[in-house]
């Protein structure tokens, strides 16, 4: 396995992560990273295919033995696995090669093997390294990617069903601590317009409002918003924030503010 630079590893990670599925529509070639419950072997095989096509030489690492991982992409915030697999790359760091793991279902960037293992809730879990050829935990291969295609379709469908159901699309905000500057979390249906209001803001303050889509769906704008203000007494005001979902898919969002001056 030829070593690559960290920058190259980041590019390869971005290549894989760019295929992330829009949870409600899951177009054909996407990878269901947002369904962490199951199907890691198919995601890993597809990521290896993408990286090999770019000239990289990935391998795979398999971890097994009572794994428990916190995830904001599952409604109850935790996934329990018997085993898990992800692609690896040899990355040159400080002149020597280190193994990094490419796993967008758990991280936002390539991470060292120890970091990847460290989030899986079992310090004594077993690691096994294989070539990219091994498809399943018990063995087998899928050189034509036909089984990969079937398995990815299954997990895309599971992600879709969950996302259009009562829990809505990921991420699940009950799993995260509301960051500072976040006034509310919301969910907006496809092509819907919703208005929120928030009162008790000092009129003398200069407040900027920003709506951020939390549900990933690459390819087109998802949300736009406008802000109206109501001065309801001498000192305070209410902001009325109207959000328009430009997409056909449900989107979870955060309403965020920044106070520029008092």
């Amino acid at each position, binding site marked *: 396995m030829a070593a690559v630079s960290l920058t190259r590893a980041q590019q390869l990670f971005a290549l894989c992560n760019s295929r992330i599925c829009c949870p409600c529509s899951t177009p054909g070639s996407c990878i269901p990273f947002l369904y962490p419950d199951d199907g890691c072997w198919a995601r890993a095989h597809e990521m290896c295919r993408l990286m090999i096509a770019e000239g990289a030489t990935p391998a795979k690492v398999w971890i097994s033995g009572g794994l428990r991982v916190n995830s904001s992409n599952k409604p109850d915030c935790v996934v*329990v696995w018997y085993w898990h697999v992800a692609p690896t790359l040899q990355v040159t760091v400080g002149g020597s090669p280190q193994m990094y793991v490419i796993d967008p279902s758990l991280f936002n960037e390539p991470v060292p093997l120890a970091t990847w293992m460290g989030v899986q809730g079992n310090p004594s879990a077993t690691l096994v390294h294989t070539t990219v050829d091994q498809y399943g935990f018990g063995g087998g291969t899928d050189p034509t990617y036909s089984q990969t295609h079937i398995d990815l379709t299954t997990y895309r469908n599971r992600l879709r069903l969950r996302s259009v159901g009562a829990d809505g699309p990921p991420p699940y905000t009950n799993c995260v601590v509301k960051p500072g500057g976040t006034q509310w979390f919301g969910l907006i249906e496809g092509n819907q317009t919703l208005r929120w209001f928030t009162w008790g803001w000092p009129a003398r303050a200069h407040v900027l409002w920003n709506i951020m889509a939390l549900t990933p769906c690459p390819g087109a704008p998802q949300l736009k918003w406008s802000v109206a203000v109501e001065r309801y007494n001498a000192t305070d005001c209410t902001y009325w924030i109207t959000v328009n979902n430009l997409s056909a898919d449900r989107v979870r969002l955060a309403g965020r503010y920044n106070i520029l001056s008092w």
Partner: protein
Amino acid sequence: MKRDEVLVEGVRSISTKVEGKAARARSGSRAAQVAVTFSGGVVGLLDARDAREKTWAEVLGSLRATRQPAYVEVDSKTRRIKNLLLPYRSVVLDLRETSRAGDLQVELEQSHAAHFLLRQSEKFEEFRALLENARRSRQAVLLTDSLDGSSIIDVRPTT
């Protein structure tokens, strides 16, 4: 009162019925009803104007193409499909009690996830017996998790 029918079956056919001009004029909208026929002959209906049911119709089409079973709950009176889930068809590798109130943790050959049969399930004993038999015989079962993935809601033998 008739209860919902619960099926775990393949999808035989899917057809879309679009309302004619007169019916459209009466309802004021272009209704499209999707009729799904399951392998045992039961027909379930979906309204393609509803975003969730439109997605269900597409997923059922995908299951039909790949010859995979669906778990569906069909309202016995209206024939509307009220729930759609994807079962696993898999051999049971292991079955063990968790430390949590006697719940069972199930390992399947076709999944790396742990699946939980909760003691509070009405069908706990029935499902446990099916899973035990399946583990011993290495005969595949059809196992369905809840949509949030937190618990097993249906187990049945493969035929």
